[in-house]
């Protein structure tokens, strides 16, 4: 019997974090339906005035659990170390990516909370905070893209009889990276699919993140279980 | 054995210090009643004296004297380079401003 090293505890925080994220996402009044970049300063100010409570509580929730994904990324980095690579470069790369998205998300989170802190602020200022929040939230993709692509590359290079992950996991990660990419260009349009409330920048990006968490959670769970079974046999 | 070296270092130090003190004399020649006046002669001589001191430090204190020719040339080239840059920027700057 392997002694308790806490790996599974950290892994099982993932569904909890996912549920909290979904609840906070639904609680925030600006996500369903997403706020349009074409809203006037008055409209934005009215939004913060009318929905102050829901904005505050949902964002406080996000602030608490925004970093929840880091253990999972580190678990992936640990799995990369089991792969048939000659250097630790790719696992280092994943570690280097881990803190990026939560940091950017927390910046966005703070701007939202700031906007709701004094809803009677001049509408122009509230709009500025709102712009900063939405833009930061939408463009937090660079590290997620890098993470997916690097992880896919790690799997492609894992040439051994029993690779740690199956090849479809790599293809899936590339697909997610492609789905996340358009959001980087959200500033080019204030209407249409690229705008931050649009099909590509909002729906495709956020659904991709959600699907990635579900799928990678299941895959990672299976891999850890197999690894533990193997280690028990070996020991 | 070491006395010759030490004597040489002491002489070098004395030269460097007296060159530093020479600045005080230069300083007194140009100022009138505490008012500072612009002077190309003072500027150029201050820079030149400083560079001579730098070269002495290179040669004696930093022992470039005993170093291979490459390092000797390189440090000398550097002294010239600094001289060109400093005097160049002074004269070019003066030419632009007037």
């Amino acid at each position, binding site marked *: 019997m392997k002694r308790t090293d806490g790996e599974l505890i950290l892994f099982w925080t993932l569904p909890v974090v996912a549920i909290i994220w979904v609840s906070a996402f639904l609680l925030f009044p600006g996500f369903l339906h997403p706020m349009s970049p074409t809203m006037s300063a008055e409209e934005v100010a009215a939004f913060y005035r009318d929905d102050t409570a829901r904005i505050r509580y949902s964002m406080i929730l996000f602030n608490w659990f925004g970093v929840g994904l880091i253990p999972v990324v580190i678990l992936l980095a640990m799995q990369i170390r089991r792969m048939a690579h000659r250097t630790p470069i790719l696992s280092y790369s994943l570690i280097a990516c881990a803190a990026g998205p939560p940091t950017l998300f927390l910046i966005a989170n703070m701007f939202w909370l700031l906007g709701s802190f004094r809803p009677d602020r001049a509408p122009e200022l509230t709009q500025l905070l709102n712009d900063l929040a939405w833009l930061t939230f939408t463009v937090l993709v660079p590290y997620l893209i890098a993470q997916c692509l690097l992880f896919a590359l790690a799997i492609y290079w894992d040439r051994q009889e029993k690779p740690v992950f199956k090849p479809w996991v790599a293809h899936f990660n590339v697909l997610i990276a492609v789905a996340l990419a358009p959001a980087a260009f959200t500033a080019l349009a204030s209407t249409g699919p690229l705008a931050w409330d649009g099909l590509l920048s909002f729906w495709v990006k956020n659904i991709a993140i959600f699907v990635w968490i579900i799928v990678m959670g299941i895959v990672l769970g299976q891999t850890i279980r197999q690894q533990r079974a193997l280690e028990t046999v070996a020991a | 054995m070491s006395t010759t070296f030490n004597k040489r270092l002491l002489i070098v130090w004395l030269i460097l*210090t007296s060159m530093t003190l020479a*600045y005080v004399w230069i*300083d007194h020649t140009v100022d009138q009643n505490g008012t*500072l006046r612009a002077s190309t002669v003072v500027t150029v001589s201050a820079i030149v004296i*400083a560079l001579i001191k730098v070269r002495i430090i290179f040669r004696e204190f930093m022992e*470039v004297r005993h*170093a291979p020719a490459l390092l000797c040339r390189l440090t000398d080239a550097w002294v010239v380079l600094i001289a060109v840059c400093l005097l160049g920027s002074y004269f070019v700057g003066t030419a632009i401003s007037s």
Partner: protein
Amino acid sequence: MTNLADSQPRLEEKSAKFVPGQPDMWMFVLFETLLFTGYFSVYLVSRTQNEQLYLQSQADLDLRIGVFNTIALLLSSWAIARCVKASREGAYRSALINALLTVSFGLVFLTSKVLEWVKEIHMGNTFTSNEFFQHYYFLTSIHCIHVLIGFIVLGVAVYQLWSPARRSQQLVETCATYWHTVDFLWVLIFALLYVVR
């Protein structure tokens, strides 16, 4: 006895040519000098654009303090040069004393520098006062940072000289080369800030 045996080839090399310290440190010295030359050139050009302001501000500097600073650093440079010679001859006790002397002269320089800053600030001349004092505080403080790094470097030299187990002549020479650089950079800064008209 081992010390003597070790130092013997080194003494014979005296007449032969050698690079003092790591050649790598020389690259640093030359590059850093180039950077400072850049700072100096910017200073001299800005100076010529507004000569009256620079001259008036310069009147607030005390040349005597500058001369004292320079002599203190020259003394420290002299001491570290003696230290290198002594350690090359195996006279480690004398080398150590000279290294510690270097540190003390360095501290004298640092103290007088800080006192001068305090005096200038009391006279109302701060970093944001005017262009001359921007350059004055910038050049003196970036040099001061080099002096502080120099104390770490001298610490390495003292550490090397302390125990018979270490005593790498190359490292001592490397440290000395760094310290001399701090010295001659100050010689240039002194001339440019205090004397140039």
